[in-house]
Protein backbone atom coordinates (compact mmCIF):
# COMPACT_ATOMS: atom_id res chain seq x y z
CA UNK A 1 0.00 0.00 0.00
CA UNK A 2 1.31 3.45 -0.90
CA UNK A 3 0.35 6.70 0.78
CA UNK A 4 0.72 10.18 -0.54
CA UNK A 5 -0.06 12.61 2.23
CA UNK A 6 -3.61 12.17 3.42
CA UNK A 7 -4.61 10.42 0.20
CA UNK A 8 -4.25 6.65 0.21
CA UNK A 9 -3.46 4.83 -3.03
CA UNK A 10 -4.35 1.17 -3.08
CA UNK A 11 -3.82 -1.48 -5.74
CA UNK A 12 -6.92 -3.42 -6.81
CA UNK A 13 -6.20 -7.16 -7.24
CA UNK A 14 -6.04 -8.70 -10.70
CA UNK A 15 -9.28 -10.59 -10.21
CA UNK A 16 -11.78 -8.77 -8.04
CA UNK A 17 -14.33 -11.53 -7.77
CA UNK A 18 -16.35 -13.21 -5.03
CA UNK A 19 -13.26 -15.06 -3.83
CA UNK A 20 -11.13 -11.92 -3.50
CA UNK A 21 -13.71 -9.44 -2.27
CA UNK A 22 -13.43 -10.30 1.43
CA UNK A 23 -9.66 -9.85 1.49
CA UNK A 24 -9.97 -6.62 -0.48
CA UNK A 25 -12.64 -5.24 1.85
CA UNK A 26 -10.65 -6.34 4.86
CA UNK A 27 -7.75 -4.22 3.70
CA UNK A 28 -9.83 -1.23 2.65
CA UNK A 29 -12.31 -1.30 5.57
CA UNK A 30 -10.10 0.40 8.20
CA UNK A 31 -9.27 3.20 5.75
CA UNK A 32 -12.94 3.85 5.13
CA UNK A 33 -13.60 4.21 8.84
CA UNK A 34 -11.31 7.22 9.16
CA UNK A 35 -12.57 10.79 9.03
CA UNK A 36 -12.92 12.05 5.44
CA UNK A 37 -11.26 9.08 3.80
CA UNK A 38 -9.58 9.99 0.53
CA UNK A 39 -8.79 6.87 -1.42
CA UNK A 40 -7.46 6.19 -4.90
CA UNK A 41 -7.85 2.68 -6.26
CA UNK A 42 -5.19 1.83 -8.83
CA UNK A 43 -6.90 -0.52 -11.32
CA UNK A 44 -3.97 -1.04 -13.69
CA UNK A 45 -3.62 -4.72 -12.79
CA UNK A 46 -7.32 -5.56 -13.02
CA UNK A 47 -8.19 -8.26 -15.53
CA UNK A 48 -11.64 -9.23 -14.32
CA UNK A 49 -14.32 -8.00 -11.95
CA UNK A 50 -17.53 -9.84 -11.31
CA UNK A 51 -20.80 -8.54 -9.88
CA UNK A 52 -19.53 -9.11 -6.31
CA UNK A 53 -16.47 -6.98 -7.11
CA UNK A 54 -18.56 -4.17 -8.56
CA UNK A 55 -20.85 -4.34 -5.53
CA UNK A 56 -17.80 -4.03 -3.25
CA UNK A 57 -16.53 -0.97 -5.13
CA UNK A 58 -19.93 0.69 -4.85
CA UNK A 59 -20.08 -0.13 -1.16
CA UNK A 60 -16.65 1.44 -0.62
CA UNK A 61 -17.70 4.57 -2.51
CA UNK A 62 -20.84 4.82 -0.43
CA UNK A 63 -18.89 4.51 2.84
CA UNK A 64 -16.35 7.13 1.72
CA UNK A 65 -19.06 9.60 0.71
CA UNK A 66 -20.93 9.03 3.96
CA UNK A 67 -17.82 10.19 5.85
CA UNK A 68 -17.41 13.23 3.66
CA UNK A 69 -14.55 11.64 1.73
CA UNK A 70 -14.29 10.21 -1.76
CA UNK A 71 -13.04 7.18 -3.62
CA UNK A 72 -11.55 7.61 -7.08
CA UNK A 73 -10.29 5.17 -9.67
CA UNK A 74 -7.01 5.48 -11.54
CA UNK A 75 -5.11 3.73 -14.34
CA UNK A 76 -8.13 1.72 -15.40
CA UNK A 77 -7.06 -1.25 -17.49
CA UNK A 78 -9.14 -1.69 -20.67
CA UNK A 79 -10.67 -4.77 -19.08
CA UNK A 80 -11.77 -2.84 -15.99
CA UNK A 81 -13.13 -0.05 -18.16
CA UNK A 82 -15.21 -2.48 -20.25
CA UNK A 83 -16.60 -4.23 -17.16
CA UNK A 84 -17.55 -0.98 -15.42
CA UNK A 85 -19.24 0.26 -18.58
CA UNK A 86 -21.00 -3.09 -19.02
CA UNK A 87 -22.38 -2.90 -15.50
CA UNK A 88 -23.35 0.76 -15.86
CA UNK A 89 -21.20 2.01 -12.99
CA UNK A 90 -18.42 3.72 -14.98
CA UNK A 91 -20.09 7.11 -14.56
CA UNK A 92 -20.56 6.68 -10.82
CA UNK A 93 -16.81 6.80 -10.18
CA UNK A 94 -14.48 9.64 -10.94
CA UNK A 95 -11.57 8.12 -12.83
CA UNK A 96 -8.13 9.34 -13.89
CA UNK A 97 -5.40 8.24 -16.26
CA UNK A 98 -2.82 7.90 -13.45
CA UNK A 99 -2.75 7.60 -9.69
CA UNK A 100 -0.81 10.87 -9.44
CA UNK A 101 -3.57 12.71 -11.28
CA UNK A 102 -6.15 11.17 -8.97
CA UNK A 103 -4.15 12.21 -5.91
CA UNK A 104 -3.71 15.74 -7.27
CA UNK A 105 -7.44 15.98 -7.87
CA UNK A 106 -8.01 15.58 -4.13
CA UNK A 107 -5.60 18.37 -3.42
CA UNK A 108 -6.96 20.73 -6.05
CA UNK A 109 -9.62 22.02 -3.71
CA UNK A 110 -8.48 21.67 -0.12
CA UNK A 111 -11.31 20.73 2.14
CA UNK A 112 -10.41 23.51 4.61
CA UNK A 113 -10.66 26.15 1.90
CA UNK A 114 -14.42 26.14 2.17
CA UNK A 115 -15.66 27.79 5.35
CA UNK A 116 -18.10 25.38 6.83
CA UNK A 117 -19.88 28.01 8.91
CA UNK A 118 -20.75 30.35 6.05
CA UNK A 119 -24.18 29.96 4.47
CA UNK A 120 -24.13 28.24 1.09
CA UNK A 121 -25.40 31.32 -0.75
CA UNK A 122 -22.87 33.68 0.76
CA UNK A 123 -20.40 33.41 -2.10
CA UNK A 124 -23.09 34.09 -4.68
CA UNK A 125 -25.18 36.80 -3.16
CA UNK A 126 -22.78 38.29 -0.64
CA UNK A 127 -23.82 39.06 2.83
CA UNK A 128 -27.60 39.46 2.73
CA UNK A 129 -27.53 41.06 6.12
CA UNK A 130 -25.31 43.87 4.86
CA UNK A 131 -27.63 44.43 1.93
CA UNK A 132 -30.60 44.63 4.22
CA UNK A 133 -28.88 47.15 6.49
CA UNK A 134 -27.88 49.32 3.56
CA UNK A 135 -31.44 49.51 2.33
Amino acid at each position, binding site marked *: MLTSGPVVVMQVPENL*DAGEVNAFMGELGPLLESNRPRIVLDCSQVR*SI*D*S*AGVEALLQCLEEALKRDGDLKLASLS*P*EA*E*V*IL*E*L*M*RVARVFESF*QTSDEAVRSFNALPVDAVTQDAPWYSTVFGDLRAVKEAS
Partner: protein
Amino acid sequence: MVRAVVIVGPNGSGSGSGELSSAKLVANRSLACVEMLGRTVLGRTIEELLRGRIDSVVVIGTGPFTSAVMGHEKVDFFSAQDPWSKAAQKAASFDGDAVLLMRLGAYVEFDPADMLQFYRDQDRQLTRACNHEGCLDLWVINPSNVPRNDRLFAFLESENITPYFIPGYVNRLESPRDMRQLISDGLAGRCHFRPQGLEIKPGIWIGHGAQVERTARLVAPTFIGANSKISDQCLITRASSVESNSHIDYGTVIEDTTVLSNTYVGIGLDLSHSIVEGGHLLNLQHGVMLRMSDPVVLRRIKNSKVHSTIDGSFLANLDVRNMALSSVPKKEQ
Protein backbone atom coordinates in the same frame (compact mmCIF):
# COMPACT_ATOMS: atom_id res chain seq x y z
CA MET B 1 -22.14 -31.23 -65.03
CA VAL B 2 -20.29 -28.69 -62.87
CA ARG B 3 -19.35 -29.35 -59.29
CA ALA B 4 -17.95 -27.27 -56.51
CA VAL B 5 -15.59 -28.12 -53.70
CA VAL B 6 -15.85 -25.91 -50.63
CA ILE B 7 -13.06 -26.08 -48.07
CA VAL B 8 -13.98 -24.93 -44.58
CA GLY B 9 -10.64 -24.43 -42.96
CA PRO B 10 -7.29 -22.76 -43.10
CA ASN B 11 -5.59 -21.83 -46.32
CA GLY B 12 -3.27 -24.50 -47.59
CA SER B 13 -0.01 -22.69 -46.98
CA GLY B 14 0.77 -24.97 -44.05
CA SER B 15 -0.48 -28.08 -45.76
CA GLY B 16 1.94 -30.94 -45.49
CA SER B 17 3.99 -29.24 -42.81
CA GLY B 18 1.32 -29.64 -40.17
CA GLU B 19 1.40 -25.95 -39.32
CA LEU B 20 -2.31 -25.36 -39.37
CA SER B 21 -2.91 -24.25 -35.85
CA SER B 22 -2.42 -20.50 -35.75
CA ALA B 23 -5.18 -18.63 -33.98
CA LYS B 24 -6.08 -16.62 -37.04
CA LEU B 25 -6.77 -19.71 -39.08
CA VAL B 26 -8.71 -21.40 -36.34
CA ALA B 27 -10.93 -18.36 -36.01
CA ASN B 28 -11.19 -18.00 -39.76
CA ARG B 29 -12.45 -21.55 -40.04
CA SER B 30 -14.97 -20.93 -37.32
CA LEU B 31 -16.33 -17.69 -38.75
CA ALA B 32 -17.79 -19.45 -41.80
CA CYS B 33 -19.75 -21.66 -39.45
CA VAL B 34 -20.91 -19.03 -37.00
CA GLU B 35 -24.58 -18.13 -37.24
CA MET B 36 -24.96 -14.54 -38.38
CA LEU B 37 -28.38 -13.01 -38.93
CA GLY B 38 -29.86 -16.46 -38.52
CA ARG B 39 -27.63 -18.44 -40.87
CA THR B 40 -24.00 -19.37 -41.40
CA VAL B 41 -21.86 -18.12 -44.26
CA LEU B 42 -21.36 -21.78 -45.21
CA GLY B 43 -25.10 -22.40 -45.49
CA ARG B 44 -25.64 -19.25 -47.52
CA THR B 45 -22.73 -20.04 -49.84
CA ILE B 46 -23.99 -23.55 -50.55
CA GLU B 47 -27.41 -22.18 -51.34
CA GLU B 48 -25.98 -19.58 -53.73
CA LEU B 49 -23.80 -22.16 -55.50
CA LEU B 50 -26.75 -24.46 -56.11
CA ARG B 51 -28.79 -21.51 -57.32
CA GLY B 52 -25.94 -20.53 -59.69
CA ARG B 53 -26.00 -23.65 -61.87
CA ILE B 54 -23.63 -25.71 -59.79
CA ASP B 55 -24.98 -29.26 -59.86
CA SER B 56 -23.50 -30.57 -56.65
CA VAL B 57 -21.30 -29.38 -53.82
CA VAL B 58 -18.69 -31.20 -51.77
CA VAL B 59 -17.89 -29.57 -48.43
CA ILE B 60 -14.66 -30.54 -46.68
CA GLY B 61 -13.75 -29.44 -43.20
CA THR B 62 -11.63 -30.45 -40.28
CA GLY B 63 -14.46 -31.12 -37.86
CA PRO B 64 -18.11 -32.13 -37.62
CA PHE B 65 -20.57 -29.86 -39.38
CA THR B 66 -23.60 -28.09 -38.07
CA SER B 67 -26.81 -29.90 -38.81
CA ALA B 68 -28.23 -26.66 -40.22
CA VAL B 69 -26.66 -27.23 -43.64
CA MET B 70 -26.66 -31.02 -43.76
CA GLY B 71 -29.29 -33.19 -45.28
CA HIS B 72 -29.35 -31.63 -48.73
CA GLU B 73 -29.29 -34.26 -51.46
CA LYS B 74 -26.86 -32.28 -53.64
CA VAL B 75 -24.38 -31.61 -50.87
CA ASP B 76 -21.85 -34.08 -49.48
CA PHE B 77 -19.85 -33.43 -46.33
CA PHE B 78 -16.44 -34.81 -45.52
CA SER B 79 -14.26 -34.36 -42.50
CA ALA B 80 -10.52 -34.63 -43.05
CA GLN B 81 -7.40 -33.77 -41.11
CA ASP B 82 -5.89 -32.22 -44.22
CA PRO B 83 -8.83 -30.76 -46.14
CA TRP B 84 -6.65 -29.62 -49.06
CA SER B 85 -5.46 -33.12 -49.86
CA LYS B 86 -9.01 -34.36 -49.61
CA ALA B 87 -10.15 -31.51 -51.88
CA ALA B 88 -7.49 -32.41 -54.46
CA GLN B 89 -8.61 -36.00 -54.37
CA LYS B 90 -12.27 -35.09 -54.80
CA ALA B 91 -11.70 -32.46 -57.51
CA ALA B 92 -9.50 -34.80 -59.55
CA SER B 93 -12.16 -37.49 -59.47
CA PHE B 94 -14.76 -35.27 -61.16
CA ASP B 95 -15.50 -35.48 -64.87
CA GLY B 96 -16.35 -32.43 -66.93
CA ASP B 97 -14.26 -29.45 -67.99
CA ALA B 98 -14.40 -27.37 -64.82
CA VAL B 99 -14.63 -27.57 -61.07
CA LEU B 100 -15.19 -24.59 -58.84
CA LEU B 101 -12.99 -24.59 -55.77
CA MET B 102 -13.38 -22.21 -52.87
CA ARG B 103 -12.21 -21.78 -49.32
CA LEU B 104 -14.34 -20.16 -46.64
CA GLY B 105 -13.02 -17.69 -45.58
CA ALA B 106 -14.52 -14.75 -47.13
CA TYR B 107 -18.16 -14.03 -47.83
CA VAL B 108 -18.27 -13.40 -51.59
CA GLU B 109 -21.26 -12.45 -53.68
CA PHE B 110 -20.65 -13.64 -57.22
CA ASP B 111 -22.36 -15.35 -60.11
CA PRO B 112 -20.88 -18.88 -60.46
CA ALA B 113 -22.31 -19.28 -63.97
CA ASP B 114 -20.65 -16.05 -65.11
CA MET B 115 -17.31 -17.08 -63.61
CA LEU B 116 -17.49 -20.48 -65.30
CA GLN B 117 -18.30 -18.83 -68.61
CA PHE B 118 -15.32 -16.49 -68.17
CA TYR B 119 -13.07 -19.50 -67.49
CA ARG B 120 -14.24 -21.25 -70.64
CA ASP B 121 -13.87 -18.11 -72.77
CA GLN B 122 -10.27 -17.60 -71.59
CA ASP B 123 -9.35 -21.20 -72.33
CA ARG B 124 -6.72 -21.23 -69.58
CA GLN B 125 -6.10 -23.96 -67.01
CA LEU B 126 -6.76 -21.81 -63.95
CA THR B 127 -8.98 -18.84 -63.17
CA ARG B 128 -8.88 -17.08 -59.84
CA ALA B 129 -11.38 -14.57 -58.48
CA CYS B 130 -10.19 -11.24 -57.17
CA ASN B 131 -11.57 -7.88 -56.23
CA HIS B 132 -10.04 -4.45 -55.78
CA GLU B 133 -8.37 -5.59 -52.54
CA GLY B 134 -6.59 -8.55 -54.11
CA CYS B 135 -7.03 -12.26 -54.76
CA LEU B 136 -9.75 -14.34 -53.16
CA ASP B 137 -9.69 -18.03 -52.34
CA LEU B 138 -12.01 -18.89 -55.21
CA TRP B 139 -10.84 -20.69 -58.32
CA VAL B 140 -12.12 -22.52 -61.40
CA ILE B 141 -9.86 -25.34 -62.48
CA ASN B 142 -9.89 -28.20 -64.96
CA PRO B 143 -10.24 -31.45 -62.98
CA SER B 144 -7.63 -33.13 -65.16
CA ASN B 145 -5.06 -30.50 -64.11
CA VAL B 146 -5.54 -30.93 -60.37
CA PRO B 147 -2.30 -32.17 -58.79
CA ARG B 148 -2.87 -35.57 -57.20
CA ASN B 149 -0.62 -34.88 -54.26
CA ASP B 150 -0.58 -32.33 -51.44
CA ARG B 151 0.63 -29.59 -53.80
CA LEU B 152 -2.85 -28.32 -54.62
CA PHE B 153 -2.55 -25.04 -52.77
CA ALA B 154 0.88 -24.28 -54.26
CA PHE B 155 -0.58 -24.96 -57.72
CA LEU B 156 -3.52 -22.64 -57.05
CA GLU B 157 -1.17 -19.93 -55.80
CA SER B 158 0.95 -20.09 -58.96
CA GLU B 159 1.19 -16.98 -61.06
CA ASN B 160 -0.15 -18.64 -64.18
CA ILE B 161 -3.71 -17.61 -63.48
CA THR B 162 -6.38 -15.62 -65.24
CA PRO B 163 -7.94 -13.17 -62.80
CA TYR B 164 -11.69 -12.91 -62.75
CA PHE B 165 -12.81 -9.63 -61.27
CA ILE B 166 -15.73 -9.75 -58.83
CA PRO B 167 -17.55 -6.44 -58.76
CA GLY B 168 -20.00 -7.49 -56.06
CA TYR B 169 -19.89 -7.39 -52.30
CA VAL B 170 -16.95 -9.11 -50.60
CA ASN B 171 -16.23 -9.35 -46.90
CA ARG B 172 -13.01 -11.21 -46.16
CA LEU B 173 -14.11 -12.14 -42.65
CA GLU B 174 -10.56 -11.95 -41.38
CA SER B 175 -11.46 -10.56 -37.98
CA PRO B 176 -14.42 -10.17 -35.63
CA ARG B 177 -14.63 -6.57 -36.78
CA ASP B 178 -15.32 -7.88 -40.31
CA MET B 179 -18.03 -10.05 -38.82
CA ARG B 180 -19.75 -7.06 -37.25
CA GLN B 181 -19.37 -5.18 -40.53
CA LEU B 182 -21.04 -8.01 -42.44
CA ILE B 183 -23.96 -8.08 -40.01
CA SER B 184 -24.29 -4.33 -40.17
CA ASP B 185 -24.17 -4.37 -43.99
CA GLY B 186 -26.74 -7.17 -44.08
CA LEU B 187 -29.14 -5.29 -41.83
CA ALA B 188 -28.69 -2.10 -43.82
CA GLY B 189 -29.32 -3.89 -47.12
CA ARG B 190 -25.86 -3.12 -48.49
CA CYS B 191 -25.46 -6.76 -49.57
CA HIS B 192 -27.52 -9.90 -50.06
CA PHE B 193 -26.65 -11.19 -46.59
CA ARG B 194 -30.24 -10.88 -45.45
CA PRO B 195 -31.62 -11.67 -42.02
CA GLN B 196 -33.47 -14.97 -41.73
CA GLY B 197 -36.80 -14.06 -40.27
CA LEU B 198 -39.96 -12.07 -40.63
CA GLU B 199 -39.59 -8.34 -41.10
CA ILE B 200 -42.22 -7.18 -38.63
CA LYS B 201 -41.44 -3.48 -39.17
CA PRO B 202 -39.06 -1.83 -41.64
CA GLY B 203 -35.58 -2.91 -40.56
CA ILE B 204 -36.68 -5.18 -37.71
CA TRP B 205 -36.47 -8.93 -38.27
CA ILE B 206 -37.72 -11.59 -35.90
CA GLY B 207 -36.88 -15.28 -36.23
CA HIS B 208 -39.31 -18.13 -35.70
CA GLY B 209 -40.33 -18.59 -32.08
CA ALA B 210 -38.61 -15.44 -30.82
CA GLN B 211 -40.28 -13.75 -27.87
CA VAL B 212 -40.10 -10.00 -27.39
CA GLU B 213 -41.79 -8.67 -24.27
CA ARG B 214 -44.24 -5.80 -24.59
CA THR B 215 -42.07 -3.12 -23.00
CA ALA B 216 -38.87 -4.13 -24.78
CA ARG B 217 -37.85 -1.71 -27.49
CA LEU B 218 -36.30 -2.65 -30.82
CA VAL B 219 -34.84 0.17 -32.89
CA ALA B 220 -34.22 -0.56 -36.57
CA PRO B 221 -32.15 -2.03 -37.99
CA THR B 222 -32.03 -5.01 -35.70
CA PHE B 223 -32.37 -8.77 -35.77
CA ILE B 224 -33.74 -11.16 -33.16
CA GLY B 225 -32.97 -14.80 -33.95
CA ALA B 226 -35.19 -17.84 -33.67
CA ASN B 227 -36.30 -18.88 -30.17
CA SER B 228 -34.59 -15.92 -28.53
CA LYS B 229 -36.13 -13.94 -25.72
CA ILE B 230 -35.95 -10.20 -25.12
CA SER B 231 -37.20 -9.32 -21.65
CA ASP B 232 -39.07 -6.21 -20.50
CA GLN B 233 -37.43 -2.78 -20.65
CA CYS B 234 -34.61 -3.95 -22.93
CA LEU B 235 -33.36 -1.78 -25.76
CA ILE B 236 -31.81 -3.36 -28.86
CA THR B 237 -30.38 -0.81 -31.27
CA ARG B 238 -27.69 0.28 -33.77
CA ALA B 239 -27.55 -2.73 -36.09
CA SER B 240 -27.41 -5.21 -33.24
CA SER B 241 -28.24 -8.85 -33.70
CA VAL B 242 -29.31 -11.39 -31.13
CA GLU B 243 -28.81 -14.83 -32.64
CA SER B 244 -30.90 -17.91 -31.98
CA ASN B 245 -31.72 -19.31 -28.52
CA SER B 246 -30.30 -16.32 -26.67
CA HIS B 247 -31.86 -14.39 -23.81
CA ILE B 248 -31.44 -10.70 -23.05
CA ASP B 249 -32.66 -10.15 -19.53
CA TYR B 250 -34.58 -7.26 -17.97
CA GLY B 251 -33.53 -3.70 -18.75
CA THR B 252 -30.34 -4.45 -20.67
CA VAL B 253 -29.26 -2.20 -23.54
CA ILE B 254 -27.64 -3.83 -26.57
CA GLU B 255 -25.99 -1.36 -28.93
CA ASP B 256 -23.84 -2.07 -32.01
CA THR B 257 -23.37 -5.60 -30.70
CA THR B 258 -23.82 -9.18 -31.82
CA VAL B 259 -24.97 -11.70 -29.25
CA LEU B 260 -24.16 -15.11 -30.68
CA SER B 261 -26.34 -18.19 -30.26
CA ASN B 262 -27.15 -19.77 -26.90
CA THR B 263 -26.03 -16.79 -24.83
CA TYR B 264 -27.60 -15.33 -21.73
CA VAL B 265 -27.04 -11.61 -21.09
CA GLY B 266 -27.91 -10.56 -17.54
CA ILE B 267 -30.11 -7.89 -15.98
CA GLY B 268 -29.47 -4.17 -16.34
CA LEU B 269 -26.31 -4.29 -18.43
CA ASP B 270 -25.00 -1.89 -21.05
CA LEU B 271 -23.47 -3.86 -23.88
CA SER B 272 -21.99 -1.88 -26.76
CA HIS B 273 -19.53 -2.35 -29.66
CA SER B 274 -19.07 -6.01 -28.78
CA ILE B 275 -19.46 -9.60 -29.79
CA VAL B 276 -20.67 -11.90 -27.04
CA GLU B 277 -20.79 -15.65 -26.92
CA GLY B 278 -21.48 -17.58 -23.75
CA GLY B 279 -19.21 -16.17 -21.07
CA HIS B 280 -16.88 -14.50 -23.58
CA LEU B 281 -17.08 -10.85 -24.47
CA LEU B 282 -14.99 -9.22 -27.17
CA ASN B 283 -15.17 -5.44 -27.01
CA LEU B 284 -14.19 -4.06 -30.40
CA GLN B 285 -13.91 -0.46 -29.25
CA HIS B 286 -11.33 -1.18 -26.54
CA GLY B 287 -9.87 -4.24 -28.26
CA VAL B 288 -10.39 -6.35 -25.16
CA MET B 289 -11.44 -9.95 -24.74
CA LEU B 290 -13.03 -10.84 -21.41
CA ARG B 291 -13.99 -14.17 -20.01
CA MET B 292 -16.80 -13.53 -17.55
CA SER B 293 -16.91 -16.18 -14.87
CA ASP B 294 -20.01 -14.63 -13.31
CA PRO B 295 -23.09 -16.46 -14.67
CA VAL B 296 -25.32 -13.64 -13.47
CA VAL B 297 -23.73 -11.39 -16.09
CA LEU B 298 -23.02 -13.63 -19.08
CA ARG B 299 -23.27 -17.35 -19.60
CA ARG B 300 -23.84 -20.02 -22.20
CA ILE B 301 -27.36 -21.39 -22.40
CA LYS B 302 -27.15 -25.14 -22.55
CA ASN B 303 -29.02 -26.39 -25.56
CA SER B 304 -28.16 -29.85 -26.72
CA LYS B 305 -30.21 -29.51 -29.88
CA VAL B 306 -28.34 -26.56 -31.33
CA HIS B 307 -24.68 -26.38 -32.33
CA SER B 308 -24.02 -23.09 -33.98
CA THR B 309 -20.36 -23.57 -34.81
CA ILE B 310 -18.22 -26.20 -36.33
CA ASP B 311 -16.18 -26.75 -33.20
CA GLY B 312 -17.98 -25.21 -30.27
CA SER B 313 -17.37 -21.66 -29.17
CA PHE B 314 -16.08 -19.21 -31.73
CA LEU B 315 -14.78 -16.62 -29.26
CA ALA B 316 -13.26 -19.28 -27.02
CA ASN B 317 -11.03 -20.29 -29.93
CA LEU B 318 -10.03 -16.76 -30.72
CA ASP B 319 -6.60 -15.60 -29.71
CA VAL B 320 -7.37 -11.93 -29.44
CA ARG B 321 -3.71 -10.97 -28.99
CA ASN B 322 -2.86 -12.29 -32.42
CA MET B 323 -5.97 -11.49 -34.32
CA ALA B 324 -8.58 -9.10 -33.12
CA LEU B 325 -6.28 -6.45 -31.75
CA SER B 326 -4.40 -6.19 -34.99
CA SER B 327 -7.59 -5.01 -36.64
CA VAL B 328 -8.79 -2.79 -33.85
CA PRO B 329 -7.63 0.79 -33.81
CA LYS B 330 -5.81 1.60 -30.62
CA LYS B 331 -7.78 3.64 -28.17
CA GLU B 332 -6.77 7.27 -28.15
CA GLN B 333 -5.21 8.26 -24.88
